């Protein structure tokens, strides 16, 4: 065992990939491959038992998927820093991995070129994305969030309460239900509905529900 070497655990379901990664990494005298996992479950076990400095984690693995393994490892508060290996850039997936605690993301077609540099950067406390160390993670997360966010909800001049009423209408609530939900009178609900119909140019509840569905008027989780 080499003193002060960077201890790496490889987790990938593909034997050829593991062999390729191991040989490539072990050519570097400062890196020591301490274990190889064939699936997410084994990755979790070995990470807990071996306490490696770095876990190279393939996201698409059998049993426990890479993202779920990452979630569990983060919950365990291990010292291991995880670098995600992925076949293609999916910004939503990258954002999720970073939010779950990954310290770097390396594309599989760039492992030969970037992996050792990424490992060093991560060991120095940096993050690594798109082939480079990241100086400002907050900015990266902000940018990724903006790029992956759903389109903003349009309001068509409706007030916050009127939008809430629209949401309940699309869920099939009656005026009585809505009045009860908000602690207001049915007369007030009717007044809200009249205002909503006028602002949107619709004539009845069905037209309102269709308009809401077709014009991004509902909160994302309602659609």
């Amino acid at each position, binding site marked *: 065992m080499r003193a002060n070497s960077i201890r790496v655990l490889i987790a*990938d*379901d*593909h*034997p*050829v*990939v593991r*062999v*390729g*990664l191991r*040989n*490539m990494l072990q*050519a570097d005298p400062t890196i020591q491959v301490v274990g190889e996992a064939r699936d997410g479950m084994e990755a979790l076990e070995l990470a807990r038992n071996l306490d490696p400095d770095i876990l190279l984690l*393939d996201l*698409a693995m059998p049993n426990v998927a890479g993202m779920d393994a990452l979630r569990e490892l983060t919950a365990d508060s291990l010292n291991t820093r995880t670098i995600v290996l992925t*076949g*293609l*850039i999916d910004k939503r997936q990258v954002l999720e991995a970073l939010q779950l605690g990954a310290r770097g993301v390396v*594309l*599989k*077609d760039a*492992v*030969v*070129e970037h992996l050792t540099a990424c490992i060093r950067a991560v060991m120095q406390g940096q993050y690594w994305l798109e082939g480079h160390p990241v100086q400002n993670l907050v900015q990266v997360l902000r940018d990724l969030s903006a790029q992956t966010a759903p389109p903003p909800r349009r309001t068509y001049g409706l007030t916050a309460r009127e939008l809430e009423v629209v949401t309940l209408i699309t869920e099939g609530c009656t005026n009585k239900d809505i009045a009860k939900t908000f602690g207001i009178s049915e007369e007030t609900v009717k007044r809200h509905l009249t205002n909503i119909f006028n602002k949107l140019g619709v004539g009845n509840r069905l037209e309102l529900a269709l308009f809401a569905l077709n014009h991004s008027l509902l909160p994302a989780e309602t659609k």
Partner: protein
Amino acid sequence: MPVEETPLSSAVFDQLRQAMSNDSAGFAALYRDYLADAWQTFQNLRASIDQGQFDDVQAKAHYLKSSSLVLGAPLVAHCATEVERAALAKDLSDAGALLDKTKGKLQQVQAELAERLGKSVIPENYDAAA
């Protein structure tokens, strides 16, 4: 994913060879194993496509893509990605043609590797698979 025009990425091949410079037999074995595994996966993919098993096709195509990316076979990886996407879209109508394309790219990689490493890199299961 940017697609390189060459079947075998020289940059990846050369860097891996340099990394394994003290084990040239192991280096050749790595690529022989890659080809054997790729042809086996290719055969399995053909069977899964014939049976219309979307999940199997997606998983196997992803598997082939993964090793092809790491070992520097970008065109095979690109074809495998297309098969994977077809399976995810639950539409395998073009998968047979895509697989034929994959076979062609894999044969190109194999020919390139045979030229660089010798014919012993060609796996025994090649004839059966191709």
